[in-house]
């Protein structure tokens, strides 16, 4: 486990800092960098962000705990965020959630026993016109049905 930023991340953080008049405003992008670097926002990650921005750790933690896309637990190797909001729901998104639960043994908020997938329920990801939709890591997949979702997930090991 690393407990400080590597050179690549530091360069990125220095660039981020130039975009804002205050260090505090750089917290959100810095948290993304830390999440990428550490895997999730473990206490060391929050401390590293606080050090880098010269802020109290509490200030960083207060921001980090407000937003749902920051992870405070170890995640699976791939993070699935499936939308079950209304436009996707009426096209069958809840069935798909069930498929994932059955096939990979992963419930919303959890990680599959083999550590391959985390499952999160998303609330509209701006793909309502081609739902049901999900994000796997950074990739958007749309027009899902029970068959397609399994095919798509085969590509994430």
């Amino acid at each position, binding site marked *: 486990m690393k407990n400080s930023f590597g050179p690549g991340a530091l360069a990125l953080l220095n660039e981020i800092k130039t975009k804002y008049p205050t260090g505090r405003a750089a917290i959100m992008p810095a948290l993304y960098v830390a999440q990428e670097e550490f895997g999730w926002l473990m206490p060391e990650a929050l401390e590293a962000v606080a050090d880098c921005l010269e802020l109290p750790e509490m200030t960083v933690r207060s921001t980090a705990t407000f937003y749902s896309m920051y992870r405070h637990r170890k995640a699976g190797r791939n993070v699935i965020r499936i939308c079950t909001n209304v436009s996707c729901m009426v096209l069958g998104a809840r069935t798909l959630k069930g498929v994932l639960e059955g096939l990979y043994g992963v419930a919303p908020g959890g990680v599959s026993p083999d550590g391959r997938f985390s499952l999160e329920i998303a609330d*509209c990801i701006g793909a309502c016109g081609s739902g049901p939709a999900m994000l796997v890591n950074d990739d958007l997949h749309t027009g899902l049905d029970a068959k397609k979702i399994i095919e798509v997930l085969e590509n994430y090991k």
Partner: protein
Amino acid sequence: MTRYLLDVVENRSIGEYERAGGYQGLGKALSMEPGQVIEEVKKSGLRGRGGAGFPTGMKWMFAAGDPKSPKYIACNADEGEPGTFKDKAILDENPHLLIEGMAIAGHALKAELGYIYLRGEYLKEKDILETAISQARASGYLGENIMGSGKRFDVHVHLGAGAYICGEETALIDSLEGKRGQPRLKPPFPVNSGLWGSPTIVNNVETLANLPFIVREGAGRYVRIGDPGCPGNKLFPVSGHVERPGVYELPMGTTLREIIYEHAGGIKNGKTLKAVIPGGISAPVLPPGLIDCPMDFVSVQKQGSMLGSGGVMVFDEDTCIVRVAHRALEFFERESCGKCTPCREGTGWLRGILERIETRQGREGDIRLLEDVSKNITGNTFCPLGDGAAAAVLGFLMHFREEFAEHIKNGCPFGPDDLNPYHYNPVQP
């Protein structure tokens, strides 16, 4: 009809955009005094496309009139309203339109810096925007001495992290400052005290994307498009049970019927229309009898709903309205920021009551109770999130009361939503 938001350029390249007249609006704006640009925007009658429909020129005038500086331009690209994916269409197809719009706003407000608050899920759009911003810098439309005018203006992208409330303008400002995204008490309004206490304009992506056309072609031409009271084109993202879901650019005031039946191809699989939400999940539902309503801020409000984001969500005859209402409230409960009690507690109550109605545990007075809780939320919350939740519930009850009563009496008559853990199949032989 004239289209100026979507389908303007073949690809996203800056060259294509310039050939289609891109950045001429900025050039023209820079040759005008900032006050003249604001005057032109006021004359255009442009109203904000983020949901509230506030007159853009007036907002700008307030910010320009504040003696404090620096001033900031904040573009609201949080697009969190379920059923809404129109700003994404602009970013995907035509990102320079937004950048040009922001630069025009920058000149009008004498601001030198703008931020695009982009929702966390729009990672592809983040790349598109950052590429477009670099292109614009390289071509002299952003950065120092833009278009040789001696003015400077630059734009940064700020990625949100999954909080619907950050679409609310004061929460957006707190979030951009690196804080928890909770709404601030107004006044002071952002036009006087926004980012870091400075006068700040918060405008939606689509609002800003209207500016290049307004400035280039003139307010006189713009006011002839759409509805005289509310000019211009509007983007309508259509989802749910239609043959051709997608984003349609149409004159403001196009009827819901035309949008659903002509543009989106009618109801999927030859079924009939049961209900439509006209402006994203916070907008009260409308029954089929009201779809001749023109889609503009005033007309939709007259029907007891709102234009909101323009996100049209269409439901066919087989849709369970209680289930839709329940899912909507699950969303509001989760996204309530927790700052004020009526919203934090009220949304949970509404979701809970809807849940028991859907799972055949509904009680006699539940419809009354839903109304009572909704009315106690309305007008008593810090920001309009709670009002939206309450209005949505009251809308469902107003037009589909019978269906709720039927659920309470006999359970949900629609097929099981198989893996919906809340669902209880009432058909027991």
